[in-house]
């Protein structure tokens, strides 16, 4: 069996790690969907407050999305900047 060079090994594992970070999307989908459901309930209870409820829901969802953005940034850095290869 041919041997793998160290760079290829590190690059391959970086790619796997960058893909596994996608698991963060599970939590975000659940959290944002739950907040949207509660917002819809609020609008159903009081339709004239729809503008305020929409604004509050958007702010809450953007705050909940922050962890997903952190995960996205880490995976982008792993894929395009390749910091671990430089440490070989």
């Amino acid at each position, binding site marked *: 069996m041919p041997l793998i060079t160290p760079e290829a090994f590190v690059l391959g594992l970086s790619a796997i790690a960058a893909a596994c970070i996608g698991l963060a999307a599970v939590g975000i989908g659940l959290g944002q969907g739950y907040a949207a459901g509660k917002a819809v309930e609020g609008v159903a209870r009081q339709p004239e407050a729809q503008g305020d409820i929409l604004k509050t829901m*958007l*702010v809450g969802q*953007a*705050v909940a*999305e*922050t962890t997903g*953005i*952190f995960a*996205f*940034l880490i995976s*982008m850095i792993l894929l*395009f900047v390749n910091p671990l290869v430089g440490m070989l």
Partner: protein
Amino acid sequence: MHDLNHLGPRIIVGFGDGSVFITETVFFAMIVAAVMIVLAFWSTRRMEQQPKGKQVIVEMIVEGIYKLTEGAMGKHNSHFAPYVGTLFIFLLLSNSLGMWGFRPVTADVNTAFALSLTTAFLMQYNGIRTMGFIGKIKHMSSPYPFMFPLKIIEELSFPISLGFRLFGNILGGAIVMALIFTALETGSHALHLPIPLLQAVIPLPFNLFFDVFEPILQAFIFTMLTMVFVSMEIIIHGTEDHH
């Protein structure tokens, strides 16, 4: 611009031996600032008591900003409205530069963190101005003294998350647009089209999302979080002090 191998901002001018340089981020930020100043001067020429024409629109915008500030921070804090308005309009214009074919100004981590550092400085300054330095330390260790390091970590992590949220969202949008354009370009080459036909109409809904909806949402959220946290530093003083 849509090159996947060069995702960072390009260097325009290098001083000295090239270690001090100006990137296109600074260049476009100055252009956005110049556009804002020109618009401000152009719209306030010859103001009249009975407004008509462009003065109506500008007065609507300013009234809207003041209403937003007073709604989030209370009537006694309406002197923050100029900063809030400038922040909102600057973010709106900077994030949607992708629509004109340029790299968005806030897709650079330096710009996003400069804005969030300004907000953090405003928060701390207002906290110290209303509570005093000793009062602020006493407030941070208010229920139990061991909360002090936790509160310090919270105060430090808020500007970092604010900056990263803005930077990550806008850079993510720019990267996805670059990916879409590269995919369509490969498709055009595979079909041997003389003109890039596939890239003409198909990216439009993605442009609508990433260059219109996302900039407005991120500008709004940055502004709302700024207002809420700055007003939190001031409200706490009002409930604990007797004037």
